[in-house]
């Protein structure tokens, strides 16, 4: 970080925002210097999103001042923020899929900006080369991968020559290689004097790239630190207070006999932007966690859908549970045989948003709580409150609507509900995505406990750290291919990262060719 001058780029003074029933930001003060990469850390619901939305003019604070380049400003709308030179890359991308890259970027620019730039496509190509973003202005956004879309969003900010770039969990969707590419871009920007506000859950990234960090908890600033003087563990401790023991060393186990088997599973994609599954083979043993790494959109959703039975195509000979073919059974029949699922999408797939938690419990536990066709509400209610208490789900009670819970709390509830079935096989996608450190810990422990009771667990995740933490054996998917499965101790992050990028594909197809020959 170069000190360009002594005037801070952005200063937040006592920002306070009260939502009904929740003080989202409580007297938050933060200072960012030009060229500083500043991490904003905190559990889910700590107030990070509210704070950055305040800076970007989406949320109006109740109290407090924003000082920009030494002058007090009132950022009433995103367009004012952009005029000042504030750019934001959202966690859920805000691109228009039916428009081209160039049109998407054009929409964000004012007429004067456009006139100044002249040929927008040429400018995009030039910036793309300058920063190594590899963005083609004439492509339609719907044809781009997640990583490419993120680069389009960053490009959108670069075109406007931002002085402050806000990134909301930018790395959660990227491969390790893409992450290092992104960090390269961020470092260049920082050297040119652009300040960066970086929200992340991944602490090692924060220690790697950020100059300063502010830690929020319950809407308040609880600590600030210089990340490269800290360890991920010490920062995690600041984030959650004294609760967390961020211990990487969960004991690895060897599974016993085969519980679930996938054999020669090939399946063309059903969705227009889906991935075809290509000859997938693996076995899942009782008492083990098999982790499958991969960047989103490489066949995980399709694999999950066909295993769960949500994809109703008949794959009779490819899936077996306890040596029984199940590929032709529908989802309910598979559940009865002892399979349980935690899908990635919590609202809508894992739980019905408008139904209460009690009703959502009933949906997958119908057998135990329905007698002679009548629902036993009393016992299902008691069961649900026990679940809420056991997994410390924060909600207003067992009749809260599923959609009223925060992502992390709903995930704890769904995990608890599925684990409560005592499944033989649990298929679990992205169990801690967007979940805070405390809840993630609870979910991890629940998974390990279930494994130790002898269940077979398939864990699909984009969080490579989590996979190394939990999985006994690991593999990666890329473009619908599954890599070899290896014991976690016998591999490392580089190998898995390369597999996620598909380096195994040529080798394995060679092997099959050899086998055929």
């Amino acid at each position: 970080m170069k000190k360009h001058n002594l005037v801070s780029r952005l200063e937040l003074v006592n920002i306070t925002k009260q939502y009904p029933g929740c003080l989202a930001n409580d007297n938050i003060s933060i200072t960012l210097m030009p060229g500083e990469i500043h991490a904003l850390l905190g559990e889910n619901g700590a107030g990070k999103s509210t704070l950055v939305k305040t800076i970007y003019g989406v949320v109006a604070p109740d109290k407090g001042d924003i000082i920009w380049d030494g002058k007090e400003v009132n950022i009433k709308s995103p367009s004012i923020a952009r005029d000042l030179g504030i750019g934001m890359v959202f966690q859920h991308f805000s691109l228009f899929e039916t428009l081209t890259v160039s049109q998407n970027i054009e929409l964000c620019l004012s007429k004067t900006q456009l006139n100044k730039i002249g040929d927008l496509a040429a400018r995009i190509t030039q910036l793309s080369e300058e920063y190594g973003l590899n963005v083609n202005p004439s492509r339609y956004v719907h044809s781009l991968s997640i990583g490419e879309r993120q680069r389009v969003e960053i490009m959108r900010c670069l075109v406007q020559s931002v002085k402050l770039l806000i990134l909301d969990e930018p790395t959660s969707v990227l491969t390790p290689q893409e992450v290092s590419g992104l960090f390269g871009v961020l470092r260049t920007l920082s050297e040119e004097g652009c300040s960066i506000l970086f929200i992340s859950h991944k602490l090692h990234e924060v220690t790697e790239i950020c100059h300063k960090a502010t830690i929020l908890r319950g809407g308040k600033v609880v600590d600030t630190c210089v990340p490269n003087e800290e360890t991920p563990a010490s920062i995690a401790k600041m984030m959650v207070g004294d609760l967390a023991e961020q211990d990487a060393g969960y004991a690895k186990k060897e599974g016993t006999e085969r519980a679930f088997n996938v054999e020669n599973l090939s399946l063309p994609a059903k969705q227009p932007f889906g991935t075809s599954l290509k000859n997938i083979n693996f076995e899942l043993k009782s008492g083990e966690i098999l982790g499958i790494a991969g960047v989103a959109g490489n066949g995980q959703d399709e694999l999950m859908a066909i295993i769960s039975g949500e994809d109703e195509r008949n794959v009779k000979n490819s899936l077996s549970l306890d040596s029984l073919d199940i590929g032709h059974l529908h989802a309910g029949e598979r559940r009865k045989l002892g399979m349980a699922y935690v899908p990635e999408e919590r609202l809508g797939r894992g739980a019905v948003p408008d139904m209460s938690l009690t009703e959502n419990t009933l949906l997958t536990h119908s057998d135990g709580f329905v007698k002679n066709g009548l629902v036993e509400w009393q016992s299902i209610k008691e069961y649900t409150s026990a679940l809420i208490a056991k997994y410390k789900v924060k909600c207003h009670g067992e009749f809260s609507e599923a959609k009223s819970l925060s992502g992390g709390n709903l995930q704890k509830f769904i995990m608890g509900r599925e684990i409560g079935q005592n499944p033989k096989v649990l298929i679990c996608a992205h169990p801690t995505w967007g979940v805070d450190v405390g809840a993630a810990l609870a979910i991890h422990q629940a998974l390990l406990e279930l494994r130790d009771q002898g269940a077979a667990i398939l864990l699909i995740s984009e969080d490579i750290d989590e996979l190394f933490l939990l999985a006994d054996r690991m593999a990666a998917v890329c473009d619908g291919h599954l890599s070899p499965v290896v014991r976690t101790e016998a591999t490392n992050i580089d190998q898995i990262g390369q597999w996620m990028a598909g380096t195994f594909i040529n080798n394995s197809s060679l092997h099959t060719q050899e086998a055929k020959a």
Partner: protein
Amino acid sequence: MDSDLIVQILFAAVKTGTPLLFIALGEVICEKSGVLNLGQEGMMLMGAVVGFLAAYGTGSAGLGVLAAMLMGCVMSLIFAVLVLHLGANQVATGLALTIFGTGLSAFIGSGVVGQTIQGFQPIAIPLLSDIPFIGKILFSHDILVYSSFAMTFALMFVVNKTRIGLTLKAVGENPHAANAIGIKVLRVRYLAVMFGGVMAGISGAYMSLVYTPMWVENMTAGRGWIALALVVFASWRVGRIMLGAYLFGLASIMHLVLQGLGWSISPNLLAMLPYVATVVVMVIISADKFKEKLLAPRALGKPFDPRQMA
């Protein structure tokens, strides 16, 4: 069938298609912004009756059209306030608007039922109307038909070539993202809905001042609904709406044609044609998920509340 008859049929198809063209152009802009207004029929009827009353009172068909545009705009504003400002359900509100417009137009027009006025007269465009075949079909109409041509081309340009069109598509596809980049979503939607109202008003005026220069209760006879089907039929493309409007126009005069050929098919069966065509198009579109995704405005019918960020 001789060529004179063909020319006459096509001439009539353009004439019959014109009110459909006006109202569908309005609706497509409205839908591109993400708002589904099922009140077309009501707005059109109100435009027809108010346009007729104004022309009857002042003797000027031009003032009649102006009054109809204003009325359509007022009707759409009622809809816009309910749906955009107060977040009412778009489908229910649109249906209510149609029922409201049908009733109110019958009420305020009851005194002039059966009266006739001097509507717009055809103006043959010099030179162009002398082109054999085409000239008679396209360039021997009245001023409103010509303005519908102009309007179609103007909208094709605005939607496909300008930033206004880009903004409109952005709002209809992802209002939250549009809001985040500083587009005033509600303002865009208000304007789009009001444009739809103005066009419905003109369309109504065309019915009561040109097509059949008189006012009869419920005289639009479901054209507002056909227009909704037409927008889907045209898969939200402005250019195709023009084509579709004339095709639908042709379909609705088909019974005359067939009679001329000596076939007797119930006109009621033929009146189904536009709807059958729409269903077929919808099936074709949705068979290809990829196309479906790219054609329909993604946020169509979904209310946008700026206070709830996705």
